[in-house]
């Protein structure tokens, strides 16, 4: 039984999926039997499936599970589908346009080992602009524009048993993550490591280098 189940929803992410998936399968100091990655393809209309099948052959069938559903467009609902299938002791999240740094799971593992009573451990995240140049995804790390942006979905690692107590994600198109994780925080002792271990990107439109966060397409940002 794997120790960590990693949940990755994907909708039309052919370009970004490879980097996200490899950042999970190449985590430092996590044995191959200790991790499963559940990719839920939310009815993509691009070649996300082709890319995913390529990754399954290159990274190992036993690690990656491909779950394809008809398009829902609700991040919480899509993550719930994966939670139902998760067999690990711990659940972690990596959105398909973002990536983890190699020490993400091991950092949470150290905190859970030091303090076995914790229900959830949260790392910090870094902020980047992503853009596409000649078909390649490029990244430029920048300091987060908002001082309180330190923890998000990609930072969270919680025990699977938390779900039995607090229930699943709600079906809102946004805010579903804060609601879910604050229910865990209210029900279990939790801790923050203060260590950056994932990078979140916001995709630039054209040549415009200014920060854009288009709420209208939030449902695609997972």
């Amino acid at each position, binding site marked *: 039984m794997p120790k960590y189940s990693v949940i990755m929803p994907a909708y039309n992410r052919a370009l970004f999926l490879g980097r996200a998936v490899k950042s999970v399968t190449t985590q*430092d*100091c996590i044995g191959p039997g200790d991790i499963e990655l559940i990719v839920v393809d939310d009815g993509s209309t691009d070649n996300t499936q082709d890319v995913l099948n390529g990754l399954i052959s290159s990274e190992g069938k036993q690690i990656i599970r491909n779950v394809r559903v008809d398009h829902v467009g609700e991040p919480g609902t899509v993550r719930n589908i994966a939670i139902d299938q998760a067999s690990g002791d711990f659940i972690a999240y990596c959105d398909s346009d973002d990536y983890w*740094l*190699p*020490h993400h799971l*091991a*950092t949470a*593992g*150290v905190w859970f080992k*030091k303090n076995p009573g914790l229900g959830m451990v949260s790392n*910090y995240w*870094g*902020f980047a602009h992503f853009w596409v140049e000649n078909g390649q995804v490029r990244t430029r*790390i920048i*300091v*987060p524009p908002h*001082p309180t942006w*330190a923890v998000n979905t990609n930072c969270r690692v919680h025990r699977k048993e938390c779900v039995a107590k607090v229930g699943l994600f709600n079906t809102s198109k946004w805010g579903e993550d804060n609601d879910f994780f604050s229910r865990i925080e209210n029900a279990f002792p939790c801790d923050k490591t*203060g*260590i*950056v271990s994932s*990078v979140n990107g916001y995709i630039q439109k054209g040549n415009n280098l200014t920060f854009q966060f288009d709420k209208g397409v939030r449902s695609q940002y997972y």
Partner: protein
Amino acid sequence: MSDPEVSVLMPVWNGCRNGSDKFLRMSIESILNQTFENLEFIIVNDGSRDGTAGTIEEYKAKDPRIRIVTLPQNMGIQKALNAGLRECRARLVARQDADDMSTVTRLEVQKKFMDDRPATAMCGTGMYVINEDNKLVMEINDRPCNYVVVREALKERCVFVHGSVMFRKSAVLDVGGYSEEERVKHAEDYDLWVRLAKDYSVENIPGVILYFHRNHQSKIGNVYSAKQAAATKLIGGMARQTLASPPLQKIPG
């Protein structure tokens, strides 16, 4: 406890900044939190006159893997490093700086790399630069990795992050340890890598396993930058002579 397989060597001189030991604590905890646990942690207190002694004694009381070497007065980083090196019992020594943080997997990754490559005398890594709030500022991962390329590049510049390296103690002692000469002060690491690279394989691991506090290398960054630049230039000149002939390809003991 069994003999430690890795000695972590950390010199510290006045490790508190603006009266706060926050960064010193983060640095110490980043070693005590390593996934690789069979280590000893040698902290050299180089004549600190602030709260450093109290902080490191507090951690020593909690974790028997810590040993403290207290120098009677401020001797400078070169002598402090050599004093600490003499206390290291393990064959592998990892450097840690008092205002950097290692990612929790650092020692496990580096030890495996060294175990897989018995002919390699030292490995370094890239680094994440973070600001005072632990926010990611940039990732520096562009250093050469392969020995042949590293050896050539050392003729021009220092291609190792000092606080990221793990080396075999026998090889470093074989080339005389850190130089205590005044003229290489502030670039004593570069000087050692050149002497080590002359006949031993030294490499960087692709990837990043160290955090670096950009705003807290102030001692080097502000006060000594001109001296450091001069020492670096001097060592570069020596490196072109030292590394002119092909390596003897010694195998570390």
